[in-house]
């Protein structure tokens, strides 16, 4: 008996340590980012850093304004959401409510596969297919642009939007749908007027998750966006917050390197905000 109790305790302890390990990592990253992100901001000045429109880190007279990156990230994410959410949402309604079981199984497999494709592959396909196509279609000198990045991001966020929305839609009690059908509503009316409103916080969570994925993506957008620190414009080469860090880190030093940490800190704050929003919706879904 006593031995059992000791084993219980030991196991309890092991799990606690493993749990704390995760928490510790988050804490460590947060502290590290804050400590290493602050100096550059103090030196450059918060306002000049966040709202400066010119990033020229290697110029003789360097300038560290990250507004182009912030706006590019926001526009890119918003564009991806604008494009990806309607497609993902209707796909989720179709798969969870209308599709016959065989089609559903097949398409769900495809969606999972889409989720599993490494982002560098998205980037590669985007680079070799999408970028030249955009150049041809819109008759611009370089297809590597915000527009191309938006398309790639929209496709990349589809799986999370479809899957999370589907889970929410499938969790809608069948009784609600039966009641609607028994009142003479058609199945499609029922899905859009009863099931979707009942699943709305789950669908909102799906959208927020998509925002999180889009804003955090680096590799794929670096390969299709041209990676030039311009103020964002749909058919111009742009640079995102993520790619700003990734593209200069390997050769940076001094204030330039510190500024990259500050960019990472800004990105981190964005992600924190998105996570808080996500938790809000998930909690609402539970109630």
């Amino acid at each position, binding site marked *: 008996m006593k031995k059992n109790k000791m084993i219980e305790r030991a196991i309890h302890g092991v799990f606690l340590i493993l749990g704390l390990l995760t928490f510790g990592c988050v804490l460590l990253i947060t502290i590290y980012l804050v400590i290493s992100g602050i100096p550059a901001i103090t030196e450059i000045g918060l306002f000049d850093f966040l709202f400066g429109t010119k990033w020229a880190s290697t110029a003789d007279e360097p300038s560290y304004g990250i507004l182009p990156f912030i706006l590019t990230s926001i526009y890119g994410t918003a564009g991806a959401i604008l494009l990806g959410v309607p497609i993902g949402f209707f796909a989720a309604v179709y798969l969870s409510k209308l599709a016959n079981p065989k089609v559903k199984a097949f398409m769900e497999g495809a969606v999972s596969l889409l989720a599993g494709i490494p982002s560098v592959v998205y980037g590669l396909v985007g680079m070799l297919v999408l970028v030249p196509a955009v150049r041809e279609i819109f008759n611009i000198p370089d297809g590597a642009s915000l527009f191309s990045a938006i398309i790639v991001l929209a496709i990349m966020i589809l799986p999370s939007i479809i899957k999370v929305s589907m889970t929410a839609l499938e969790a809608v*009690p069948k*009784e*609600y749908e*039966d*009641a*609607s*059908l*028994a*009142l*003479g*509503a*058609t199945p499609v*009316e029922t899905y859009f*007027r*009863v099931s979707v*409103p*009942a699943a709305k916080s789950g669908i909102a969570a799906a959208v927020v998750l998509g925002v999180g994925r889009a804003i955090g993506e680096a590799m794929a957008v670096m390969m299709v966006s041209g990676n030039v620190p311009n103020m964002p414009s749909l058919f111009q080469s742009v640079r995102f917050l993520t790619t700003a860090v990734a593209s200069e880190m390997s050769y940076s030093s001094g204030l330039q390197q510190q500024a990259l940490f500050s960019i990472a800190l800004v990105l981190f704050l964005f992600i924190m905000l998105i996570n808080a929003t996500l938790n809000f919706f998930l909690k609402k879904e539970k109630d």
Partner: protein
Amino acid sequence: MSDIMTAKDLSLWYDKTQALKNVNITIPEKSITAFIGPSGCGKSTFLKTLNRMNDLIPSVKIIGEVCYNGQNIYDNSVDVNELRREIGMVFQKPNPFPMSIYDNIAYGPRTHGIKSKVKLDEIVEQSLRDAAIWDEVKDRLKKNALGMSGGQQQRLCIARALAVKPKILLMDEPTSALDPISTSRIEELAIELKKSYTIVIVTHNMQQAVRISDNTAFFLLGELIEYGETEKLFSQPTDKRTEDYITGRFG
């Protein structure tokens, strides 16, 4: 009293399992008809064939006819949504939509194209009055329906069904999830409603059938064993199996 619904040789299968065997029944207008029988006897399944709610289960096969106003409702030309508007349903578990009381009631009329606020207000009030719940909810029509008690929710569901002005109301064990007081209120309501509607009710509770119904049908293993006036069926059943069931020998 004229007959409003007739089932002719109705059989139903779930995959390979036969759940209803050659059911023949006529249901008179503006009366309460009760279906009784042990669990799994097919009474709920049969009820759902009357407004084609079984269509929603993919593996169901139905042969035979159900005639409503002289028309076989399984005929290809029948608009099933229109049919369900005329033959409403109240379910075993109260299932108000997760929206306001007002929107619950207005859902059906809105579905059928009524947009005028004045008209909707009128329908909502009338339906809630008819379901004897108006006085309890008139001050909180904008509150979420899920905040009501189980008994209130079930009367709200009845009001919601009435809002589309059906001819027939099918009730699938509407009181099985409710306490005795709520149950008796629903029973009183059913008796009140039969002045204007035809009610078909499935019940587990034989006393309930005796209390409220005009006619009773006893189902066993997918067959309609006996059907007749409630009083007669319970006092002088003609079939031995009916007698065994109502005297509590099985079930």
